[in-house]
């Protein structure tokens, strides 16, 4: 679980929040409504996670609630392992 979390944090900080103080990104930071994850970045993140963890998401897995925070994403990835 921790590994998934650190992969997610590292990806989001580097690609979506460059220059942000890492302590401002918590497991519950809202990612979708805050605009951190827009259409393109969602697709990129999802593809990255599929490659990193050798998993495959179905379209229905990617409903907004499952992408809303690091905690939600972590649960989603875990459910596919």
């Amino acid at each position: 679980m921790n590994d998934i979390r650190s992969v997610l944090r590292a990806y989001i900080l580097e690609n979506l929040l460059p220059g942000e103080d890492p302590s401002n990104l918590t497991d519950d930071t809202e990612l979708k409504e805050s605009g951190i994850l827009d259409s393109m970045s969602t697709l990129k993140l999802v593809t990255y996670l599929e490659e990193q963890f050798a998993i495959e998401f179905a379209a229905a897995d990617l409903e907004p609630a499952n992408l809303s925070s690091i905690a939600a994403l972590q649960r989603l990835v875990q459910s596919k392992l």
Partner: protein
Amino acid sequence: MQLELSEERTRLREAAEQFARSALGKDLARRERTGEFDRDAWRRCAEFGVLGMPIPPQFGGMGLGLSDLLAVMEGLGRGTRDQGLLFSLNAHLWTNSIPILKFGTAQQKDKYLRPLCDGSLIGANGASEPDAGSDIFSLRTRALRDGDGYVLTGTKMFVTNAPVADLFVVYATVDPALGATGITAFIIEKGTPGLRVGRKLEKMGLRTSPMAELIMEDCRVPASQRLGREGRGVPVFECSMEWERGCILASCLGAMERQLEECLAHARSRKQFGKPIGKFQSVANRLVDMRVRLDTCRPLVYRIGELKDAGRDATTEAAIAKLHVSECYVKSCLDAIQVFGGYGYMTEQLVECDLRDSVGSTLYSGTSEIQRNIIARGLKL
């Protein structure tokens, strides 16, 4: 990066230019006025190999790399004024053949690529909708799962080639609540029940490239016609746009070269106040600006080819090239009219036709504003 084309690419460009000069642009002034597509020229482009350029030989193409393609497109743009035909070719190649090549199943490739290369099928792409343009991923066309297939309902706007097309790549959402991750691409053949071409759209320029709305009403499509995975239409669309941005610009580059040559010839031969108008500094300055634009545009276009041929991402670079070339193209077309004076404004010379064609380049494949947004994203802003 290399600033000069290799000998081989120069030969490709010259061959394309010669072909375009001899085979394309017949009866253009009339066809441009009436908005008529040249089916015979399309067939000749297929014979020359244009439609198969990026497709590997096992599917009936030539398997050229992007840098080679850019050289051919530049040659075609220089050799013909029929920019509408070139626009239709670009739409067919980058939004139909290439997505099928990159994302299609073995069966889809076997079935469609050969006829797309030999000119017997014309391809089109339906992404834009009345309420989804720049914000393309807010599209509303629905693809409802129904047994071993989908039922599509919705209207597509601005579909280049639609009135003459045989094969459509269409984007729909399996669930609007999923946003971009619900968008799915489909290949739909003309004649599929529930699919029809709507009203023909009249355009300011590129008038020999036909365009219409595309309407799907309970259009049943088997799952075997899905292009790529369910919910993964966005990468298909983005792949199309990246190829299209680079290659359409190469045709514009060719057109800008032809235009500069014509303007130079006119500025040397047209005399006013007892001397060639090119001797007046304000006229010369326009020609200088046209040349500077051309020389700054060229490397940007060929850089996309180098990056893609090396297997690297070119999203930001393609947006930079699209923004700069299209804006320069419009400015140079305005300059050309000014250099030609009243004759440039008259429709029979077709100088004004370049201007009308050029304006579209700041809109299609993402507007200039959207290119700026992509560049800003590349800057991690």
